[in-house]
């Protein structure tokens, strides 16, 4: 075993009554990719956030190469040798690519109080070129680039100064195939230089494939560290959950007949720059999976059907002939939508769990035209508990919840509304296996109860496992369609995507 690079000694952090990480002691070695896994709320992100200066730990000590690391913020952390690529978007709109890469480090290009923008742009372009991203221009506004490219720019931002410790926090779920390959390249480079990557991911197969060592956290407590070569995903699930997980969390039925009754019909849907003449028919009790590369337009299909797209052409019609052109009409006619952008579109993040669950159901909650606070509380509690949301109470603010629990609140809202047509965009994005299994179970139950589901997903296994019918999109158009079948393979779908 090589030398210890980073030693974490009894790191402890509380958020109110939640003991997020409980005296975690852990070693990271030179030249390894060290994965941290655990369920939502197990403390992985909190641990790395304490290391990189996003949060401040309550007690404990990080020692990097014999020196204590005590980052006050992310830039300070960078100067002390630790860097992080975060789960959500970590670049700032309105600034140029170069300004984003050197955010907080402008002093490096400042002489006598004057910033040398040219030097900064030049340096940024050199860096981008050296990573092979030469199509990204350092002087461009960051807003000119899509989510994936911005993630790549973030990789450059976090790694160009060769940090001793690079934290990759659930970044891969936001990336498409190309981005992942680039990210893994950078991770391997970091390892081969004798530095260390701390890799957080919910995709256990990816974890085993990419990492050398895996440490498991559960409820903020350190459980075990294993060698990636020695374990299977099932072993890891067992460690994470602390009990045997059944392997079959997808549907197991094949060949069931889907009803002929069409509940939702989208015809010739076009949204400039996103989708181009896309048509779809959803049947009662059917799960349609829509897949493709992240920029293929499939995420816009969900918005288009929900009446949320700007400048949409084409029609969305329900069985009774109702036209869906705006969100209010969609919701009033029993359509639900859970966005991929959970924090901005699905949830009012600066509001309580109760308000978020009740918001679309306020009219139904009225008794004799009067809305009572108590009814809202009872309603929210009922559905939050039905989804087994981990919370202090329904008056807790959303911003305090972990990703998986936020998604549970989103689903609780629509189950409470009892919507018949449910559009789920990336329903299990950034969510651990246990909650994932719950969501699949829920989808299966809903299907059996005659609800219809459109599931838009970047995870091929999920499409194969859950959908009655899979539509693959490419460049805004449908490029392939598959019926549910046991012998359908991921390669069949991928062939239509690229």
């Amino acid at each position, binding site marked *: 075993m090589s030398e210890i690079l980073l030693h974490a000694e009894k790191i402890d952090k*509380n*958020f*109110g*009554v*939640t003991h997020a990480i409980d005296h975690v002691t852990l070693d990271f070695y030179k030249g390894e990719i060290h994965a941290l896994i655990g369920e939502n709320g197990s403390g992985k992100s909190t641990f790395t956030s304490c290391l990189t200066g996003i949060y401040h730990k*309550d007690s404990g000590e990080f020692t990097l190469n014999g020196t204590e690391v005590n980052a006050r913020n992310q830039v300070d952390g960078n100067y002390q040798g630790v860097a992080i690529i975060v789960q959500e978007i970590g670049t700032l709109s309105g600034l140029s690519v170069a300004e984003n890469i050197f955010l907080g480090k402008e002093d490096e290009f400042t002489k006598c109080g004057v910033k040398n923008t040219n030097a900064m742009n030049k340096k940024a372009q050199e860096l981008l070129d050296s990573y092979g991203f030469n199509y990204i221009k350092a002087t461009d506004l960051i807003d000119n680039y899509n989510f994936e490219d911005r993630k790549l720019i973030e990789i450059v931002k976090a790694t160009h100064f060769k940090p001793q410790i690079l934290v990759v926090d659930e970044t891969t779920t936001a990336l498409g195939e190309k981005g992942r390959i680039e990210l893994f390249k950078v991770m391997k480079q970091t390892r081969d230089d004798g530095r260390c990557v701390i890799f957080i991911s919910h995709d256990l197969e990816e974890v085993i494939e990419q990492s050398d060592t895996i440490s498991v956290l559960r409820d903020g407590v350190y459980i075990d560290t294993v060698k990636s070569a020695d374990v299977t995903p099932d072993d890891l699930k067992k460690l994470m959950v602390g009990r045997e997980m059944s392997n079959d969390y997808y549907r197991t039925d094949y060949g069931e007949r889907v009803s002929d009754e069409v509940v939702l019909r989208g015809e010739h849907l076009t949204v400039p720059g996103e989708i181009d003449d896309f048509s779809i028919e959803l049947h009662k009790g059917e799960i349609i999976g829509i897949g493709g590369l992240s920029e293929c337009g499939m995420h816009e299909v969900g918005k288009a059907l*929900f009446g*949320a797209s700007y400048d949409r052409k084409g029609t969305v019609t329900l069985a009774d002939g109702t036209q869906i052109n*705006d*969100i*209010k009409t*969609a*919701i*009033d006619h029993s359509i639900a*939508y859970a*966005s991929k952008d959970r924090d*901005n*579109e*699905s*949830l*009012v*993040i*600066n*509001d*309580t769990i109760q*308000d978020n669950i*009740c*918001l*679309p159901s*306020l*009219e139904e*909650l*009225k008794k004799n*035209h*009067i*809305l*009572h*606070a108590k009814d*809202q509380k009872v309603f929210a509690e009922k559905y939050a508990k039905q989804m087994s949301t981990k919370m202090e109470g329904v008056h807790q*603010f959303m*911003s305090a919840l972990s990703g998986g629990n936020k998604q549970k609140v989103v689903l609780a*809202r629509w189950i409470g509304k009892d919507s018949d047509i449910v559009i789920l965009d990336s329903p299990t994005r950034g969510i651990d296996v246990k909650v994932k299994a719950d969501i699949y179970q829920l989808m299966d139950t809903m299907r059996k109860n005659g609800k219809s589901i459109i599931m838009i997903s970047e995870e091929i296994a999920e499409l194969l496992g859950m959908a009655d019918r899979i539509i693959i999109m490419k460049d805004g158009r449908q490029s392939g369609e598959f019926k549910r079948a046991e012998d359908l393979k991921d390669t069949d779908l991928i062939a239509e995507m690229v």
Partner: protein
Amino acid sequence: MGKTKNSAGLIRTLMPFAGFIFIVGLFAFLTKGRLYTVGNLKLLLSQTYVLLIACVGVFMIMTMGGLDFSQGSMLGLCSVVVCYLSNINIALAVVCGMITGGLIGLINGFFNVKRKITSFIVTICNMYLFRGIVAYATTKTPVYGASNITTYNTLPFALTFTLVILVVAFVIFQYTGLGNRLKAIGAGETAARFAGIRVERTKILVYAAAGMITGLAAFINSIKVGSVTATAGNQLETQIMIALVLGGMPVNGGAKVKFYNIILGALTYKILTAGLVMLGIEPKTQQLIMGIVFLVMVAIFADRETGMIVK
């Protein structure tokens, strides 16, 4: 951290009440109780109605994360309309006062929502625009109301008038879901839209409603004064904002607003100003003190954790 957060939350909740009691106590002491004689209390109350009513509309706007600086000029113009038409018919005057306010509110809402200009800028522009119109209308002489208009200015009438507005607004805010929707817009506009709230329509209507409510305030203003001069309603907008913030309202709106912010705030503000006047403090010094109080309260109640901004 969470525990301190909770206790910080509790302090924030109690702070406006403590502030109110402190101010009441402070001026009881400083004025040796003179402020609270029956006569002075009546006077105090009669000066509070306009502010209290106007606060209701702005409260709704601020809950959505907006601001309204045009309230003072709006009150001025509505008062012109009320006084002018009171010579014909008093009911007509009230209705047209409300319509005037509603139209100004519509203009605010239209530019804010459809032209996508922040409410701060739109309402400041309109503050000047309508102040100009008021000045024009009152150039030669003040606009006088009907000779009998001040006969309405009795304590029972004005108090009932104000209370009815407050109760109706409270019921609508609390028991129809309007409050939930406005708070959701203030806390996260995109998410509110995706939850089925017609954000644009709601915003425009709230601006218009706030204008109509100010039209009602203009009626109370008119029966109190009997006429309108060019300065009618001057600085009402800042008074409203200081009052709401004194009442514990976060300047950026959102989930933490409470309806009682209006009443608590308006009363605290009026006692504070009346107390300062009674102590014989010069107007310029009063402004200085109000400025400091406002700054301190905003600093306490701004919701920095969530990083929201005024739209």
